[in-house]
């Protein structure tokens, strides 16, 4: 099986295309994987990495394109088919069942049994064997997975992938939840897999990891392969960053930042901290100013926004609006003082999907239209309609269920909610996630218009281009701390990427 560089690659994907309502997630992706290599998949958030691996795992069906497995054309209609081919996937969100034991998790879905009676002993012994092979003999097969640390769960997830006798293991940011020591363990495992002829698709934002264990690199951007089969040794970091950020799709950020229109801060955050998430976060925003929080997923950016908004209770520090301290951990108080949040997960955190658009727009304000508790839907709907029209919501029918809108239009509805409310400070968490390029430009323009009228904005985005293009000030967040703060004009994309990945000033 150790046939590095054999004639037919293990996996060839070409021209893979996938549309989602309102967005093109993959637009002709090409990728080839050889047995026994560690193939790194690079790309910014939203570049299509997750969609691509979900296609490989049988969770998404491509609209177009070809998949060759060991030279044979194939399709992967469902996760079982993927496992039968020998493709196992370790997702970013750990997919283990906390209440089951290690062995039960590993053989979940392919239990060893005769006539429904489990072979617990042989499952346990195989589990021990696999764990030993991965260098983790200390994990017991009988242990309940819920009691393991994150790294342990990761190992279980990996052992599960191995138990399928996989030829290709896809690892989606496996190091994101691991300590440095545990990352070393992970690397040993990856290298041993490689020596056994198993191919690994390795996704990580950390370039230094890729340097250590990767063989070849494929770079995705905006759903397209911008480079594939790059040798790790011969490609410089600068080159990679250039490829990842590349400027084929020039985003229109609605002009240069205009900056604050007043010197008095409207929102000040003082030494805000939540134990275990972030600490000593201090900054202030002035009317008309945009502050961008840059950082990796998990660095604590969203948590900072949520705490300012009162959705999490801080363990220290204070939030002030125009000098008045807000009640800690109270969303109604924040909203009353003119703060609005457009959350990261629009569907699960922002919207009532089965309700009409106008009721979603007025979710924070319907009581204001009411008289003595009686709703005045005509007035409410009118106000929603007005904002929907001014934001060019499409289709413009506010009685439709919001579920039927595209990502971009759902985001516009979220913004409309706060426009009806009349916010002084808008907190935007990944404002263009799941939003296609056209609608992005509209949202950028909208943000600009708002700040021109004196709204202050604090935004989080994993797309550095976006943060740099929109914000006046950049705060770089790494491991729950603000490691750098400077005007956006004083930074370029490469520097931010360096800061974000290294966690130290360049």
């Amino acid at each position, binding site marked *: 099986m150790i046939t590095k560089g054999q004639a037919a690659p293990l996996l060839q994907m070409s021209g893979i295309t996938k549309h989602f309502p309102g967005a093109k997630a993959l637009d002709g992706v090409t990728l080839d994987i050889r047995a026994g290599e560690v193939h790194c998949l690079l790309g910014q958030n939203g570049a299509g990495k997750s969609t691509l691996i979900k296609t490989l795992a049988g969770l998404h069906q491509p609209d177009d394109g070809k998949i060759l497995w060991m030279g044979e054309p194939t399709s992967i209609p469902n996760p079982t088919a993927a496992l039968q081919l020998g493709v196992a996937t370790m997702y970013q969100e750990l997919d283990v069942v906390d209440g089951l034991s290690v062995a039960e998790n590993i053989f979940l879905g392919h239990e060893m049994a005769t006539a429904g009676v489990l072979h617990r002993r042989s499952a346990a012994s195989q589990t021990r064997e696999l764990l030993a092979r991965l260098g983790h003999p200390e994990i017991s097969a009988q242990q309940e997975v819920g009691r393991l640390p994150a790294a342990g769960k990761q190992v279980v997830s990996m052992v599960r992938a191995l138990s399928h006798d996989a030829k290709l293991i896809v690892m989606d940011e496996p190091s994101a939840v691991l300590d440095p020591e545990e990352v070393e363990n992970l690397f040993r495992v990856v290298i041993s897999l490689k020596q056994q002829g198993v191919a690994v698709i390795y996704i990580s934002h950390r370039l230094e990891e890729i340097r250590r264990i990767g063989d070849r690199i494929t770079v995705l951007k905006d759903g397209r392969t911008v480079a594939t089969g790059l040798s790790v040794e011969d490609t410089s970091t600068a080159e990679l960053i250039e490829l990842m950020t590349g400027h084929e799709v020039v985003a229109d950020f609605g002009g240069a930042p205009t900056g604050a229109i007043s010197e008095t801060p409207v929102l000040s955050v003082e030494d805000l901290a939540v134990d275990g998430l972030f600490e000593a976060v201090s900054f202030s925003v002035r009317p008309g100013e945009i502050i961008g929080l840059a950082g990796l997923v998990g660095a604590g950016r969203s948590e900072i926004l949520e705490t300012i*908004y009162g959705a999490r209770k801080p363990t220290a520090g204070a939030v002030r609006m125009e000098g008045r301290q807000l009640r800690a951990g109270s*969303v109604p108080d924040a909203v009353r003082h003119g703060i609005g949040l457009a959350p990261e997960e629009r569907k699960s955190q922002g919207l*009532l999907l089965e309700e009409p658009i106008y009721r979603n727009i007025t979710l924070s304000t319907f009581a204001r239209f*009411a008289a003595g508790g009686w709703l005045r*839907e*005509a007035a409410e709907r009118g*106000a929603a309609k007005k904002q929907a029209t001014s934001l060019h919501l499409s289709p413009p029918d506010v009685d439709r269920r919001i579920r039927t809108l595209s990502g971009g239009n759902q985001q516009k509805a979220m913004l409309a909610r706060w426009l*009806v409310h009349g916010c002084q400070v808008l907190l935007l968490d990944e404002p263009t996630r799941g939003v296609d390029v056209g609608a992005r430009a509209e949202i950028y323009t909208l943000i600009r218009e708002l700040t021109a009228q004196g709204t202050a904005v604090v935004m989080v985005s994993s797309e550095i281009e976006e943060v740099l293009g929109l914000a006046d000030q950049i705060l770089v967040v790494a491991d729950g701390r603000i490691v750098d703060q400077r005007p956006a004009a004083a930074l370029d994309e490469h520097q931010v990427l360096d800061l974000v990945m290294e966690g130290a000033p360049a």
Partner: protein
Amino acid sequence: MSTEDTSHDASGVKASAPARGRGGPRAGSHPDTSVPGRAMSGTEAVVPTGETSTVERDLRPVDSEQKAAPTFQLSLGHSLGLVLALVALIALGAATGGDRFLSLSNMTTILSQAAVIGVISIGVTFVITAGGIDLSVGSVMGLATVWATTLGTQAMANDLHWIVLVLTALAVGAGAGLVNGIIIAYGKVVPFIATLAMLVAARGFAEIISGRQTQIVNVPEFTNAFRRSILGVPVIVWIFILVAVAGWFLLNRTTFGRRTIAVGGNAEAARLAGIKVKRHTMLVFTLAGLCAGIGAVMMLSRTTAGSSTHGSLMELDAIAAVVIGGTLLVGGRGTIVGTVLGVIIFAVLTNVLIQNNLDQSVQALVTGGIIVGAVLLQQRFSREAKRR
């Protein structure tokens, strides 16, 4: 439906209908010009009359997009299905029972039987719409009947006014609901467990108070007030009608109702929009308790006795009626009209089965089948709705 009220007629002498099914914190006079049935008309010509306050209003005549929100189409379609089912049942009753079934007195009996469970189901509709469940309503109702008929309470009612009896029942119901609400909202106990505990505890408490004895109501004014008819309709049926209408307005026309739907539809989104989700959850459970209290008053007037066995298994009947009515068990959508139809369908069904001399066991069997059938239909509806 397995209600134990084997009671007789419900016609009496004298009345006033004091109980109102309104537990909402904010109900009041309303300068609201919009009328029920609005959402359908794309031409909301409703010009806000009140002061324009802080918010600018768009007064342009709304364009003629006649597209009614699918939500309403769906609930309308569902209600229509229920009405058809009801008509079919009545036809069946008429075919097998003839004039006796269609007689006014039989119809009155059906409605009287539906009234108590109906009022309780209205409360449960709110809880389920808010994404919760309340298993304790039947036993809380039993507790309220017992508490309102203790010797002490009855003596006080005879000394002061029969309303004491009513207020006691309402307070006990609302109080038990409030306890549920606090435990669920602030103690973060799942509604199923918290209300299951209340079911058991309230029943036990009622047994302690009553010593497992039936407590006869001997406040004649109370009995007289409720056991009579107005315009040929028994007072308890009027109470059901009033509670249903009030519940409809509360759910569809007030901020309380909007919050209920928001909390049930997506509690996190509601929280992040600034809605006080915990407080609202507490209020919704209190409302359900209050409805159980109203049900207790009606039960007292029908059976003229308080008993710790009143209302046993009624929570299941209420949940069945609510779900058949089209309220989603996962929350986020509720229909009072559907609940009322669900309750009446069950009452008619029971009546038809009794007319045909089928025993309780057969009734239970048929009821079970109908619940499953209705829920299967409901799932198909909601799948289709999603596809749209």
